[in-house]
């Protein structure tokens, strides 16, 4: 199966990329789906590069951690966009249908399991990104203003360290 994926990688990538970009509204997908400079189109380029990395990774030895790491750029973007959690990671499942045209019948259950494994890694990473967002939201104003006041001795409450607890980075 891994050989089949390797052999058909470009075709799989193309279809998977378009399925993913088409989760955006039609007017946006038209622009984001273009192969333009990676700095003029960060969503499009990060999506393509990430999906390519994932396809390469699943033909080798991989762990859930390495999958998560490979998925990070695209999940990190989708985690701050207007997708609900299901739609943020639903693009992974599109790979099942795309794979059906190239994967041999005997391997198809194995392939589905592989896609499920990618989906679980994507879900893990999505939660991590959402936690990042909430943590940043909770701590940024304290970090910015409170620390300056605290240093100047203008506030005598809990220190910033106390407020942020073990999460302080």
């Amino acid at each position, binding site marked *: 199966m891994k050989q089949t994926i390797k052999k058909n990688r470009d075709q799989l990538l193309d279809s998977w990329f378009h399925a993913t970009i088409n989760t955006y*509204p039609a*007017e*946006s997908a038209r622009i984001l789906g273009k192969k333009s400079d990676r700095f*003029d189109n960060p969503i499009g380029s990060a999506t393509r590069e990430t999906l390519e990395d994932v396809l390469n990774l699943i033909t080798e030895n991989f762990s859930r951690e390495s999958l998560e790491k490979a998925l990070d750029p695209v999940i990190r973007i989708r985690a*701050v966009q*207007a997708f609900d959690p299901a739609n943020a990671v639903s693009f992974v499942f599109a790979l099942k249908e795309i794979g059906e045209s190239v994967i041999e019948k005997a391997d198809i259950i194995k392939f589905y399991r592989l896609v499920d494994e990618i989906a679980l890694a994507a879900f893990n990473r999505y939660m991590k990104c959402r936690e990042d967002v909430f943590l940043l*939201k909770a701590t940024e104003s304290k*970090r910015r*203003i409170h620390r300056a006041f605290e240093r*100047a001795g203008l506030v005598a409450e809990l220190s910033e360290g106390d407020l942020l607890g073990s999460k302080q980075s």
Partner: protein
Amino acid sequence: MADELTPDEALDKIDFSPRSSSEPRNWLDTTKSVQIRPGMYCYAAKPESVETLGLPNARQWNPLEDDWKLPENWQEILHEGIKERLERFRTFKIFMDICVRCGACADKCHFFLGTGDPKNMPVLRAELLRSIYRNDFTFAGKLLKNIPGGKRLLGSREMSLEALKEMWYYFFQCTECRRCSVFCPYGIDTAEITIIGRELLNLLGLNIDWIATPVSNCYQTGNHLGIQPHAFKDMLDFFVEDIEDITGVDCTPQYQKKGADILFITPSGDVFADPGTYTCQGYMILFKYLKDKYGLDVTWSTYASEGGNFGFFTSHETMKRLNAKMYAEAKRLGVKWILGGECGHMWRVINQYMDTMNGPADFLEVPVNPITGTRFENAASTKMVHICEFTADLIKHGKLELDKSRNSNRVLTFHDSCNPARGMGLLDEPRYCIQACADQFYEMPPNTIREQTFCCGSGAGLNAGENIELRMAGALPRANAVKYVHEKFGVNSLATICAIDRAALPTMCEYWVPEVDVIGVHELVGNALILPGEKERTEDLRMEPLPGVEEE
């Protein structure tokens, strides 16, 4: 007003297919599109803050509720407001008329590139207002609105409550950064459309609190954070102690000194918010150096204690009121000219509006650097010089002794802040200063810097906490370029000359490129500048060991 996010609301994201099924291509249809999503909008202005400024319709309201508590005749107010502005501002009239919807701007906006929401294409954001203009103010609109299909043909619509809510939502998803205008073949400045749009919304009391309360604070106490003069002085005194610990030199500044040569004004963020505080210490070190070496007489003022101007994001009149204190204080103190700190929108206000709003400042002199003799012709009328121009001029004339090695742990890149870059063309001076203070400097790709710089995603009053998803999505194009130079050249420090950037970019970096730190240009200057009589420094301004010191 605190809106607790319920789990259901957290899941309640936007339906990206807002068109009605009968007309799937008609984006003007608002029947399903007004979906105000938590994480994307800022809380409503507190009534006290709106009242302080004497602006209309101060009341508690919540954007998530159906009833926005608008005045009964709100449509009439808005209609009159648009009419008045069409007569007052020729640009507004032209920008309403000439767009041909070519789409050149569509993919240039960081909010569109980051959110993927088509209504964040500058052309569509402007169309929200333009569609109403066409309907109510053009001959074609008046003619076609009674013919079936006429409105669709012209792209016009009624001023409905849904249309109003949509304008509110999207005009507060624009940072007025003007990147789109660089690419518009007609030179339409979409930022000005947002500026007018927000001004119109303010006629109905529809401001956000992250703008209204700083404006109210600034109006009452002179700065956005509402810090009173004694606390302002306390903070600077504290910096004096820190600097003395690090350098052994007392850099106590002067306040409200009548007859000083120069009045220095910087955004209050530099005084109260990290990491801007280190940039502020950089200014203090520079002024001490210039005083000891060349006798330069600079004064600070606890009254003109804010360079920023959130009035700019409210209305022209509010901007004018907040800006007036700069000239008033300069006049009262009898200084020769004004020097301004590292700030973003402050410079757009100064460079493009101050002179005609509160000027001419003919009681001030055309700025001349008394140390080098350079005459700042570009500031001949406003009488206010950017500190990066001033410092670059000093460096160019060999007037500063700098030890670059103190910044050798920093691998730098420079983020052009939208307003100094596109609003006044300040492109090379900050780079010149950085390169005089540090050896390792790498540019981000050309389509992400200088005139084409990407906004931090938090400007124009949108650096609140509650809209963090909007900010992170909007910062994606900038972060994407930072990540590239981080991976390619090992860049670990993002230098910038804007107080909002210094506040917003650390959070951006933490989410997108956690290995990169944010630093002001004058923090680098403060580290590198060799003060007369200083002790051997072992720490930088952040009180971290200087490069090379930790091993000893």
